[in-house]
């Protein structure tokens, strides 16, 4: 039987532990072992960004990270974006601007956009398009997504005062 690795990590601020084989991706561990199915499987080769999470604050395609590599690290997924007080401004903007159709790419876009706005509160449209280049959407044509991110930036600036 394949060796199991005991992984202790933090997911959305909570310490979790799980067993995995070396060949298991972080995406598989999140979805199948931890039941966090908000992170989506798209292309499985790092092109589409549907499985985007942050690992120690950096955006990654979780299909290209081994689960065992998460040991001792800090992971944020789409499930950790909203707070008990309500949706994150990026989520609220995506809803109100109808920046989604089928929804499969949406968690990845929201995780990526949130990471951008945390680093750069007021990005240009061009910057947003560059930043989101690793997230593919086959429904919307991107315009509504970009508009929602611009809108979310404005909302976050307002909250900040």
């Amino acid at each position: 039987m394949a060796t199991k690795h005991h992984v202790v990590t933090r997911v959305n601020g909570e310490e979790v532990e799980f067993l995995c084989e070396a060949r298991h991706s972080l995406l598989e561990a999140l979805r199948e072992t931890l039941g966090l199915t908000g992170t989506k499987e798209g292309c499985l080769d790092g092109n589409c960004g549907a499985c985007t999470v942050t690992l120690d604050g950096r955006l990654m395609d979780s299909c290209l990270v081994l689960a065992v590599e998460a040991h001792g690290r800090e992971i944020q997924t789409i499930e950790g974006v909203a707070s008990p007080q309500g949706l994150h401004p990026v989520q609220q903007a995506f809803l109100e601007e109808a920046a989604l159709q089928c929804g499969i790419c949406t968690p990845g876009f929201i995780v990526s956009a949130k990471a951008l706005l945390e680093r750069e509160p007021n990005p240009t449209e061009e910057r947003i398009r560059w930043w989101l280049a690793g997230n593919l959407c086959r429904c919307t044509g991107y315009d509504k997504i970009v508009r929602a991110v611009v809108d979310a930036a404005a909302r976050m600036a307002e909250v900040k005062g």
Partner: protein
Amino acid sequence: MNDFEYRAPASVSEAVALLVEKGERARVLAGGTDLIVQLRGGRFTLDRMVDVKGVPELNQLRYDAAEGLVVGAAVPCYRIYEDELVAAHYPALVDAARIIGGIQIQGRASLGGNLCNASPSGDSIGALIALEATAVIAGPGETRSVPVEQFCTAPGRSVLGPGELLVALRLPPPKPRSGAHYLRFIPRYEMDIAIVSAGVAAVLSPDMSSFVSARVALGAVAPTPLFVTEAGAALAGKPISEESIALAAEAARQAARPINDMRGTVEQRRHLAAVLTTRALRGAVARAKGEQVNGH
């Protein structure tokens, strides 16, 4: 993916020992953005994956005015383009690092991995050749250094022997009045593989009127990234002019030995080799004169 053993050594010697033990059945993991995709696609199977991200030498990023730049083989792209000293002294490296994949890939993928993957279109390789980088290789024998232009031997193949490990890339300090630029042509703005790319470095004379020397490298026009010595030779001693640049561009066009594939034709690639060499040379000259030049 088939099952394999995962090991994370803490030193170069430990990593080499783990690689030697399994020979071709072991592979090195840095960012994994090529390795994991290839493994999942069934291109090969493995007995052991050696994660080298915990080895200090492979994580260093260090600039020194006398020694130049050391880029550990596992340093991810974002650390290259977010480093102020790299941006100031090696902007051509930043040109390459910031167009490899998207943000998610740049958080993981390393220049060392890009080189070891030995793709003819590897984006960092042309920039590294132009910048006279050498690959520092550890292994069961003596540590050795190989100029990056000699590193790739065929698509997906390199000079790395069994048990050998790329530790770092060393770039000499930029020469006075020198500049470099890397450009890639793809059908969209981002997230694609080069149809052709060009990495160029130029050293200008003290009065900034002529070329002292130049290095030109092309990507995706041959089985390996191509160091076009003829293009550099065409510029040595020539005045800085569009006519001189055209001579180098023609040398690049003639050196290109491209293939037809789904990304482009032979004719298009030869043409692009000249166009990109021209543009990258203009950029390199401008940077040598202290002007700001955008990557893409």
